[in-house]
């Protein structure tokens, strides 16, 4: 009796299992489901355009969201675990711009076919495309970008400073109750961005190729000296060694019941709507935006670049549909939709002429366009970018330890660490 029950249960389980497995593959009728693994962008813009594309596909595909955590490294952790196990349930991947090299080298990304490439690269900023390529091949499709601006208090500073030294001078003159400068210098990806942009703005770069270290001595030391000067200045935020995008935003907005002690902040455009909600009468009306400061006067700065590129998993069973879906997702109208909903900058330069963008970035749309155009990506052309990131973090953190008068010891550590990281040697 009990044996018969067991057999029945087993048969049912088997039947359910088989049908669950078979359903995806053999369906010749009905749309295929494309799973898009991406963090839950709070505005809901991506869902809106995904629904639109699913409808427009004429029953070819249906995009289904699988949400990843909010933190970039946790997103990566989940993707890497699944891809490492050759999980076929991933089709579309929402990738941070610095992951292209490592995902492509690991064989987790399907290269973008030529026909799709033509459609998705038209009018896209060169700096953005650089983050989407690996070894001269396009592996990911940029959907939105991001960059940092210098945000300053128009009521305290008449013209925004052009260089870091100028900014620190003004900050020190304003004093610690009004002139603080908010940056990101905790030991995480944020400090890598700061260091990379200063090194790039000084006229050199961390890598010369995927496996060759550049880091020219004089400009790198100049960049490190500025970070050291800022960190030890009275104009530095008191929590500079633990500062992130969010502590910077909160510091700039200041307390609810008194004036903010900060007049400058390096941050992404999300701080603008945040100030509008949190400090609509005090900080927000006096908020100005300018370019990321330069290292030397007359030499334009190299602002950072962030954002999301879409990759198609090499284990996906529906690559053709997945590439068709990305072609749709990055269409100009959809990029505008995402910009309007979530304030995320488009990757196509021509869209900055559209009136919608002026509404999203009132008065600073051109600053964003210029920043992305001049932006210098982090050294993510190396598939060992995570090693590089850890190595840089260890070399420069805490930034208060960098002697602005003698940055050489930090330079030596940085160079040494980066060289080891490129070769992926030792513990990091």
């Amino acid at each position, binding site marked *: 009796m009990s044996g018969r029950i067991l057999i029945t249960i087993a048969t049912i389980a088997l039947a359910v299992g088989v049908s669950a497995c078979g359903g995806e593959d053999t369906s010749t009728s009905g749309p295929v489901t494309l799973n898009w693994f991406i963090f839950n962008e709070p505005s809901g813009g991506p869902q809106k355009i995904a629904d639109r594309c699913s409808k427009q596909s004429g029953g070819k595909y249906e995009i289904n969201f699988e949400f990843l955590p909010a933190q970039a490294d946790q997103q990566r952790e989940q993707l890497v675990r699944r891809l490492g196990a050759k999980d076929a349930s991933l089709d579309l991947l929402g990738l941070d711009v610095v992951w292209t090299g490592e995902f492509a080298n690991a064989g987790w990304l399907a290269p973008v076919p030529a026909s799709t490439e033509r459609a998705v690269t038209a009018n896209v900023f060169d700096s953005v495309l650089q983050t989407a390529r690996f070894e001269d091949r396009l592996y990911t499709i940029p959907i939105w970008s991001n960059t940092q601006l210098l945000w300053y208090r128009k009521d305290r500073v008449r013209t925004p400073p052009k260089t870091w030294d100028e900014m620190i001078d003004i900050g020190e003159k304003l004093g610690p109750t009004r002139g603080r400068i908010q940056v990101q210098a905790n030991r995480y990806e944020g400090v890598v961005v700061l260091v990379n942009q200063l090194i790039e703005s000084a006229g050199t770069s961390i890598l010369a190729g995927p496996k060759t270290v550049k880091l020219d001595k004089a400009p790198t030391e100049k960049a490190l000296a500025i970070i050291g000067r800022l960190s030890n200045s009275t104009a530095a935020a008191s929590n500079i*060694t633990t500062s992130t995008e969010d502590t910077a935003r909160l510091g700039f907005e200041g307390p609810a019941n008194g004036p903010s002690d900060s007049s400058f902040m390096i941050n992404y455009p999300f701080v603008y709507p945040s100030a509008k909600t949190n400090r609509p009468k005090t900080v927000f009306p006096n908020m100005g935006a300018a370019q990321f400061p330069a290292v030397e006067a007359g030499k334009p700065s190299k602002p950072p670049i962030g954002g999301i590129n879409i990759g198609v998993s090499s284990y996906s069973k529906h690559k053709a549909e997945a590439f068709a879906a990305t072609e749709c997702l990055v269409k100009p109208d959809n990029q505008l939709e995402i910009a309007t909903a979530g304030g995320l900058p488009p990757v196509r330069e021509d869209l900055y002429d559209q009136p919608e963008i002026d509404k999203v970035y009132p008065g600073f749309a051109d600053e964003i366009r210029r920043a992305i155009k001049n932006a210098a990506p982090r050294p993510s052309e190396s598939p060992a970018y995570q090693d590089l990131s850890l190595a840089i973090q260890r070399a420069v953190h805490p930034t208060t330890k960098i002697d602005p008068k003698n940055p050489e010891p930090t330079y030596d550590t940085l160079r040494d660490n980066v060289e080891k990281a490129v070769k992926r040697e030792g*513990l990091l």
Partner: protein
Amino acid sequence: MSTAVPTQVGEPAGRRAQRKRGGPTQTTDRTKAERKLALMLCAPAVIAMLLVTVYPILYAIVLSMQKVDLRFPEESGFVGLSNYGAVLSSPLWWQDLFNTSLVTVTSVAIELVLGMALALVMHRALFARGTIRTAVLIPYGIVTVVAAFAWFFAFDPSSGFVNNLPLIPDEKAWFGNRQDAFTVIILTEVWKTTPFMALLLLAGLATIDEGLYEAARVDGASAWQRFWRITVPLLKPALLVALLFRTLDAFRVFDSIFIMTRGSQDTESVSILGYNQLISRLNLGLGSAVSVLIFILVLLIAFVFVRFLGTAVPSQGDKK
């Protein structure tokens, strides 16, 4: 059932050898059958254990002797012990080992004192026993990551209440220097796991015969003397077990450091080091070497406790 299994861990070697040589046979058919049954009853659990613990451990050992980096699938192969060489020759490993030991020793020492005090209070509580015991256990019931976040936000200068307390400067960046960061990390560990210590000690206290205290009191022993002469010696087995469990646990500290500093300000523990190699760098070879070394250290700690401090393992508990 356990009485039917003849080989006890603490059995004198001579007798075991005698049985091996096939000495005087007392094994009847019945005991044979019972043994067989026992084996069969244990088998599913043993097989499950083998699958979920032994297999990963062996796999980690195999990986640790290979060059495996998920990002570079084409470069892989056997490299012998060179991953261990890379780990052991790195100053980072030794620094992190020191940090881990620091957190372990300090937090376990504080937990022992506090846990003992709490256990005595719970043991002697005259009223609301259940309520007191439940209340003390609350921190232990909270997920470590949640507890770590709670403490992080409490001490964070922009969101926390701690800097608003008297005697503490408003601007103090708790996670901005090593000493303060370690203080908060250790406090979190202590707050979280003192109840565990207290509970194990309470169980030990319950086994002590009340009559001993009465006799000592009659003989004029002070409370202090009763504590040191009766409670502590009789509590020793429970105490050492509690210390062993907590030390092993504290040695693998990860969550609170990960949430609070991510290892910055030189607060990195060996588990975070392993995480960085395995998860951030996807360097499975190097990361597995770190994991295996942590495993060996944990075994060593357990060995020292059992061998030199005489911690009773459950099967020989009655001998102590």
